[in-house]
């Protein structure tokens, strides 16, 4: 049963499980890894109840591949992992982008690089989530800051992935995933299903209209579609034709660019502030607390990280004296914010960086801002 409307108290990863089921998840394949394991454990219990499939695969490459296969039967699919497993999945994320396979990947970030601190928080996968696979490929990346986000943004990740046929990554972190808290299931939840194609499509399985999104031919319904990670024409047939390749790769990326407005989302608190803290994930808790003690502070919470919400960030940065980017890495979103804020004339942009293991505290943030004065 999907969660009825109401208020619930759960762990972030559990809220993700319920969000996925609310969005219509039918197939989950995964491999255990801290701090995302509770998503697999929760779905191992919940999927059979919902008539869906749960399978624990032999590794992360198998997990994402099984999810991709299942997606072609028309099922909504998901896998969950953390940094090391996310690295192993990168090739298939590019494959999903190239073949326009709807797919949701939860990456619960932990402190890296390498095995790092498996149980401790980090935010080092921001660039990897965008550029981890080879070639110019499109991807949508959302960032969850709260338990409520773990529910809402999981649903949103499915909706975007189904609508645009783009692999969609939900970045959470060890804190957001393991923290317990309150979240609300609203009375009305928007759930989007992919537009499927039921006619016989022998020669134009990847034909598209002005939305740039081809309708999806489900396996087993006589479409006789050929799917390949090779550069392909609209029939789905492999080609070495440079023009066809150019058209394909440009369209795949333009597809996300065209729908930026629908995809990009930020949350701005106190737009008339002097100092704007740009952040996402578990550091937002420190920012919220700091805002309470300092009326000059405002906060811009990135809910979409990729495509980078340039217009929204530019607008928020254009009226402030200073921008502080707070993240648990050496400045991955910072470079994007800096680029956008500079372009709108913001003179002072600084990075407050902590490398994970522990979330920044409100006093550390306030001290950093004060020291900069």
């Amino acid at each position, binding site marked *: 049963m999907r969660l009825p409307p109401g208020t619930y108290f759960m762990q972030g990863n559990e809220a993700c499980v319920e969000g996925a089921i609310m969005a219509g998840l039918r197939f989950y394949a995964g491999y255990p890894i801290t701090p995302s394991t509770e998503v697999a454990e929760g779905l191992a219990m919940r999927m059979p109840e919902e008539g869906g499939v749960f399978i624990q695969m032999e590794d992360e490459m198998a997990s994402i*591949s099984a999810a991709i*296969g299942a997606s072609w039967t028309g099922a909504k699919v998901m896998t969950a992992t953390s940094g090391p497993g996310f690295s192993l999945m990168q090739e298939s994320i590019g494959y999903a982008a190239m073949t326009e396979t709807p797919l949701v990947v939860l990456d619960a970030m932990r402190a890296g690089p390498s095995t790092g601190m498996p149980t401790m928080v980090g935010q080092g996968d921001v660039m990897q989530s965008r550029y981890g696979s080879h070639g110019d490929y499109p991807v949508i990346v959302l960032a969850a800051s709260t338990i409520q986000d773990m529910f809402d943004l999981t649903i949103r990740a499915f909706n975007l992935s189904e609508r645009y046929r783009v692999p969609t990554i939900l970045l959470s972190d060890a804190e957001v995933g393991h923290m317990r808290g309150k979240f609300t299931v609203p009375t009305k939840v928007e759930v989007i299903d992919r537009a499927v194609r039921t006619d016989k499509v022998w020669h134009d399985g990847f034909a598209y209209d002005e939305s740039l999104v081809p309708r999806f031919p489900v396996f087993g319904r006589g479409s006789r579609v*050929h799917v390949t990670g090779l550069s392909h024409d609209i029939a789905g*047939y492999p080609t070495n034709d440079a023009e066809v390749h150019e058209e394909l790769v440009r369209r795949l990326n333009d597809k996300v660019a065209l729908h930026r407005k629908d995809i990009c989302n930020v949350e701005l608190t106190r737009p008339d502030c002097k100092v704007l803290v740009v952040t996402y994930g578990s550091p937002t808790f420190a920012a919220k607390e700091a805002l309470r003690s300092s009326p000059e502070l405002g906060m811009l919470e990135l809910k979409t990280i990729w495509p980078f919400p340039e217009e929204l960030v530019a607008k928020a940065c254009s009226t402030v004296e200073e921008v502080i980017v707070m993240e648990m890495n050496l400045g991955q979103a910072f470079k994007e914010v800096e680029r956008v804020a500079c372009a709108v004339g913001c003179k002072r942009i600084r990075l407050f960086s902590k490398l994970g293991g522990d979330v920044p505290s409100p006093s550390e943030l306030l001290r950093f801002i004060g020291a900069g004065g």
Partner: protein
Amino acid sequence: MEFFDLFREDRWPHMFCPGCGIGTVMNCFQRAFAETGMDQDRTVFVSGIGCSSRIIGYLRADSIHTTHGRALAVATGIKLANPDLNVVVFSGDGDIGAIGGNHFINAARRNIDISVFCINNYIYGMTGGQASTTTPYKSYSTTTPYGNKEYPFDLAELAVTAGANYVARWTVRNVKELMGSMQKAMQKRGFSFVEIASPCPTSFGRRNHMPEPKQMFEWLKIVSVRREKSQAWGLDQLDLNMGGQITIGEFVERNRMPFGMIA
């Protein structure tokens, strides 16, 4: 069913080299598939990367050409998400024995209800002839210029040990037996694995004194030994194709409950 009822005529001619065994496999497969009476619109073909994986692009059916090594994982997802579909995998020794070896043994262990046809040409053909995990001991390839110093995998024996319900191995010379095994594999519930020893004169034969297709066919005849016969010899004389001896025949046929059907 005629050949081009199952294959895409608009994709002809195919890309395979002269003397390649894949043509024989495609021909045998079309006949075996027709015999099963399976609905091609309810069958999904899956492959990884390599020469053998290109077969599915010529099939007039839903088909998915995946990343290198992951065909069996993708096939597992398809079968579990829609158990009503027939799932057939075409693969090679690179996909099955090396980069996707873990998926191979785990798919066999799960006994997932799919059929796998592995065209073993003992070499990486598409990349120009590098040693694979099945390249016979002492054979030459571009990456074993002094002879292969490693022992090869016996893929069929591996599938038996890992838990497959049906395992057979034939060479492309044994077309009748091969067709029979392909048909059996598709009709059998659970994980079925048919390995097909296949000539690659371009990349394997050329460096191993067999540049002509007929020389490779001759070689397959000389090195292949019926399993019954090799079993009678006893293990001491059984080479498990390490020095170029290929045991052929049906390796196992059993009825373990396939994955997803265990209560």
